């Protein structure tokens, strides 16, 4: 049994403009010790999907359907007290903006110690020692001294480390990281990623990493879920997603990563704006932006299926490569037509592998 099983989760918000369905029937699972990335553009519903795991959706939003099972328990049926026990103890969250997550009027050490005390029967001295150990674990130099410092005395990267230390206070089985490196410079970002990778290696903590940065996913994750307009459109082990993307949106995302030495004058983008979740496009939600869209794409919503066997997602194993495109249900007449170039640069030599796929099922 997986550690976390999300099934048909639907979250919507009620606004004057209408009902915003930020998460629309997503299903996935995370096994113990696994790192799963949730990627997509801003507004795709990634953060909402993560907040829903801890039932942190606030009015005017609510979870209207689905199940979230953690260790076999349906979190949507837990009482507030049960949830309080679960938050921090079993599932912890690292929020995007560390500066806002920390209380400016208390020392960072006290804030970590509070998390320790809230979830365990420990003395003050033990909580303090544990907080100092956690500060050390996340790479804060001179942790005993820095214990008494306030958040404003820390840099952005160190604040994020403190937030991670708070999340780790009770050795959670699942760590939900919502864009933990957004707003940090690349060197600090690398440090945080290294820290998370180390945690994943050393402990059995599973990580759900929400990000719009595909580079981070490549660095850290075992599997990837690609979310678009509230839905999961592709799910695959990380290497397969990068070397053999199946959904046109994923292809667009990968193509839009800037590369050093690229000979194009302009950066590649996925054309068009993200759709309104109040009034999403009919059929496949990506069809207005998809270069391979056909009339059928506007009329039929593609199910998430195994790309080779057309097996529905629910019947498949978590390691399978799934995509939601009519190409994989045999409903696309002209098929997808793109090529994936993989450049391996070793010892100054460049090898290039090209693959072109013009029709479904056609060999490379």
């Amino acid at each position, binding site marked *: 049994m997986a550690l976390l099983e999300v099934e048909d989760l639907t979250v919507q918000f009620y606004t*004057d403009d209408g009902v915003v369905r930020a998460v629309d029937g997503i299903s996935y699972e995370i096994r113990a010790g696994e790192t799963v990335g949730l990627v997509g553009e801003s507004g795709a519903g990634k953060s909402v999907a993560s907040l829903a795991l801890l039932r942190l959706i606030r009015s005017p939003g609510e979870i209207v359907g689905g199940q979230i099972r953690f260790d076999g328990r349906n979190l949507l049926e837990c009482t507030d007290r049960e949830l309080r026990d679960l938050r921090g103890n079993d599932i912890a969250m690292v929020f995007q903006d560390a500066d806002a997550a920390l209380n400016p009027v208390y020392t960072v050490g006290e804030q970590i110690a509070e998390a320790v005390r809230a979830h365990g029967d420990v003395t003050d001295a033990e909580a303090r020692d544990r907080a100092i150990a956690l500060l050390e674990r996340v790479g804060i130099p001179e942790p005993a001294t820095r214990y008494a410092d306030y958040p404003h005395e820390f840099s952005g990267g160190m604040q994020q480390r403190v937030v991670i230390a708070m999340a780790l206070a009770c050795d959670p089985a699942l760590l939900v990281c919502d864009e933990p490196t957004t707003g940090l410079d690349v060197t600090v970002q690398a440090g945080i990623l290294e820290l998370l990778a180390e945690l994943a290696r050393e402990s059995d903590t599973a990580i759900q990493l929400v990000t719009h940065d595909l580079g981070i996913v490549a660095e850290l994750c075992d599997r990837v879920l690609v979310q678009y307009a509230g839905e999961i459109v592709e799910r695959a082990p990380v290497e397969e997603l990068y070397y053999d993307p199946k959904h046109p949106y994923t292809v667009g995302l990968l193509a839009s990563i800037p590369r050093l030495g690229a000979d194009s004058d302009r950066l590649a983008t996925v054309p068009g704006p993200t759709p309104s979740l109040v009034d999403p496009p009919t059929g496949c939600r990506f069809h207005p932006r998809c270069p391979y869209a056909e009339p059928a794409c506007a009329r039929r919503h593609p199910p998430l299926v195994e790309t080779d066997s057309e097996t529905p997602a629910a019947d498949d194993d978590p390691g399978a490569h799934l995509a939601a495109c009519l190409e994989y249900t045999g409903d696309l007449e002209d098929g997808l037509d793109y090529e994936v170039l993989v450049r391996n640069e070793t010892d100054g030599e460049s090898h290039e592998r090209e693959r072109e796929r013009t029709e479904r099922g056609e060999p490379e």
Partner: protein
Amino acid sequence: MKRIYDSTALERTDDDPFAPERSGGDDGGSRAIDWAAVSHAFAPRALRHRAIAVSVSTDERRYAHGEPVEITVEFRNRLPFPIRIRTDSPERWHWTVDGHRNASQVPRMVPDRPAAFSFGRNERKRFRRRWPQRIQVADDEWELVDPGSYVIDARVTRDDASDRGLAARSEIEIVD
């Protein structure tokens, strides 16, 4: 050193650092007068409904078959004070095409509980929808409508919206 939970400077209902803050808490407005609530308390019900003007318009009257229809729905508070009207659902208003709510034959998952649609003084709320001339006929299927006349209706989500003047309609023609 003072502990977080020793302090009375911040309201903390429980000592769970991962719990969401309570809604309606630190808005800093506890000493300010909620004029919308005052207005709601004093405005007679009939007046509240008469205050709101609803209109629906499309960018054209005639459309080629398959051409998207741009719909604009406007709600306007005619009065110089705030108005709040009760709705039957958190989906405060909706639009229909020939009676199909949100151009769909598939019911949407919206809870059946009352909510409120609030307007500031003389406020105008304008919303846009794009109807691609398709009706949702199943969870995963849409069908293009045939050429002909179609009625687009927008209304506040209340059973008595038509009786209370909280609905408007517009007719379009789709030609081959």
